[in-house]
């Protein structure tokens, strides 16, 4: 099977034609031989039957008159037919009457069983039986047997001839087919070659086949295809060039972009570094400030203290007053430094975000503030659990609460802390029944170093609220105040739930309360 695949078209065609011819010839030959065989047999039968008839006719008298000699003489005539091996006449009584044996035949062979008139092929012999009828009466029977030698001879001859013819015919077939196959293989090979050429890239190559048959059409289609291929190649090339130029320009742009981006990144890194270093500087600065600015303050305080102690007798009331003022100023300075430092740290110094149960925290803050007996601080409803920087939230509540306490002017001070949920925000409120604030100052109080009362009345750095504002805004919230002078003030501030990062208050409460 694989051999079949590797054969060339030419060989295939020749082989096909040859095989077809040979097969046909073989068939014809076989048919012929069979036909001849049949015919020869029949001829043989006919011939032998004729012999039998003649002999039978001639032996009638001999048989009727029991002349064995005469009968045998008659039978002897059969020797002219060399294929007849045996003849036998049997009388109607069933007894053998006369025989003939061919010269080379063993005389002891039994004559065959007499049958009805007819012929039988068997054991390589043809045996014919003929009744001898005299005047309508069967007086005996004749049996003739001949070998099939002539048959075989004829057959051999026929077969020989047929084989010879077959060979000759095959030869002729070969020559003819090898010439004629070119009609098919020629164009195919040309097509194959054409395909190969085009495959190599010679797109101008065309296949010339002039015949009007399918191969001609194929060649036509092939050439069309080649033409189209050439066109499409050309257009593709063009397109590719266009794309390539587009790509390269895009590439250039990209490269520029990349360079720019890199530069930007570098700048960013640089900036970050700078920020870091600035941050560090500020940190150091803050430290230095807090430390070195405070140092002289300490000295001043000490000296004031000593002067007050050592020269108490030399100081009059005014003197004492001045000393007090001096000391107070020193304290103020100290607080201002701390406040400013603290303010600056908000947002700059990032702490860890932790979960804080505000209920607990606020209670702690209230404890630390330790308000006077006449001031009552209450938490109105359950405060949520939030996730934020601890210091900051403490600062918020501490500032607001301490303010409320500090500025309380009523004999029964009441500070109420509350919280409601609103549009994804918590709205906290710190409400007092203090002196209240005039509307025109609602904005001002949140500014740095702003106080509403002279500093000597209520010692205040003026930093607190601005810091609270900064913290609240840092967490995406807002702070404002509602107040009625004389009645009290309520400070509101919102904290975004998302900023706070708490989803389920109760769940969170469980976690925090276990801590």
């Amino acid at each position: 099977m694989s051999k079949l695949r590797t054969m060339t078209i030419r060989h295939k065609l020749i082989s096909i034609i040859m095989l077809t011819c040979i097969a046909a010839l073989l068939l014809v030959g076989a048919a012929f031989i069979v036909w001849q065989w049949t015919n020869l047999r029949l001829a043989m039968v006919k011939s032998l039957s004729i012999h039998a008839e003649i002999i039978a006719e001639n032996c009638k008298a001999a048989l009727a008159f029991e002349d064995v000699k005469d009968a045998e003489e008659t039978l002897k005539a059969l020797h002219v037919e060399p294929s007849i091996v045996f003849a036998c006449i049997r009388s109607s009584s069933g007894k053998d009457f006369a025989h003939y044996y061919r010269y080379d035949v063993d005389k002891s062979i039994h004559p065959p069983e007499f049958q009805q008139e007819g012929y039988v092929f068997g054991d390589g012999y043809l045996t014919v039986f003929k009744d001898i009828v005299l005047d309508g009466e069967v007086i005996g029977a004749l049996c003739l047997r001949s070998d099939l030698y002539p048959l075989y001879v004829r057959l051999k001859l026929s077969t020989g001839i047929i084989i010879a013819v077959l060979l000759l015919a095959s030869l002729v077939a070969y020559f003819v087919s090898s010439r004629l196959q070119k009609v098919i293989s020629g164009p195919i090979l040309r097509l194959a070659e054409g395909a190969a050429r085009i495959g190599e890239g010679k797109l101008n190559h065309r296949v010339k086949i002039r015949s009007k048959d399918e191969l001609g059409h194929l060649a036509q289609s092939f050439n069309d295809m080649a033409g189209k291929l050439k066109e499409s190649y050309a257009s593709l090339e063009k397109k590719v060039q266009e794309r390539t130029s587009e790509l390269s320009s895009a590439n250039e742009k990209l490269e520029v972009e990349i360079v720019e981006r890199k530069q930007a990144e570098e700048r960013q890194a640089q900036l970050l570094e700078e920020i870091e270093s600035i941050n560090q500087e500020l940190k150091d600065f803050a430290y230095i400030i807090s430390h070195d600015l405070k140092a002289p303050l300490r000295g001043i305080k000490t000296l004031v203290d000593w002067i007050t102690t050592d020269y108490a007798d030399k100081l009059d009331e005014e003197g004492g007053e001045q000393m007090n003022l001096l000391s107070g100023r020193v304290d103020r300075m100290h607080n201002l430094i701390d406040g400013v430092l603290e303010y600056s740290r908000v947002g700059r110094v990032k702490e860890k975000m932790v979960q804080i149960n505000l209920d607990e925290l606020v209670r702690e803050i209230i404890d630390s503030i330790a308000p006077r007996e006449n001031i009552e601080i209450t938490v109105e409803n359950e405060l949520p659990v939030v996730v934020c920087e601890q210091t900051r939230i403490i600062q918020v509540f501490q500032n607001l609460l301490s303010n409320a306490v500090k500025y309380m002017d009523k004999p029964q001070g009441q500070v109420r802390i509350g919280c409601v949920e609103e549009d994804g925000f918590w709205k906290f409120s710190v409400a007092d029944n203090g002196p209240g604030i005039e509307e025109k100052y609602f904005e001002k109080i949140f500014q740095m170093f702003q106080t509403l009362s002279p500093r000597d009345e209520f010692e205040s750095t003026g930093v607190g609220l601005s810091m609270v504002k900064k913290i609240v805004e840092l967490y995406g919230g807002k702070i404002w105040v509602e107040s009625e002078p004389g009645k009290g003030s309520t400070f509101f501030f919102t904290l975004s739930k998302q900023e706070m990062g708490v989803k389920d208050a109760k769940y969170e409460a469980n976690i925090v309360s276990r801590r």
Partner: protein
Amino acid sequence: MRNMKPILLVEDDKVDAMTVKRALKDIKVMNGLTHTVNGEEALEYLRGESNKKPCIILLDLNMPKMNGVEFLKIVKEDEELKKIPVVVLTTSKDEQDKIESFKLSVAGYIVKPADYKKFVEAVRTIELYWTLSELPDGG
């Protein structure tokens, strides 16, 4: 103090120095007080033959020319001088300063209280402690 050896105070701030002196006076410490304004001077004094070796050094950290840590380093290198107990008396709460000081085997680290009265208490504590604590002789 037990003995009559002087106390060496290394402190640049005049007011702070005055505070120490005053505090010592308040708690009636009779030992003499030598005051130097920086580490260099202190070293000079300590190395000075004619000078009496102090029984305790009260050392401030932030000083010009030679600050406390530098001074400490040198003192603790010196076989003789390192026996003298040094108590750092400073405004600095800095953790780093503390670490440095204790690395250099200070006997104590006290942050100066802002309040004078508290300052006096601190000095008294030092005095009490060193009255109790014994120093090797020959210093």
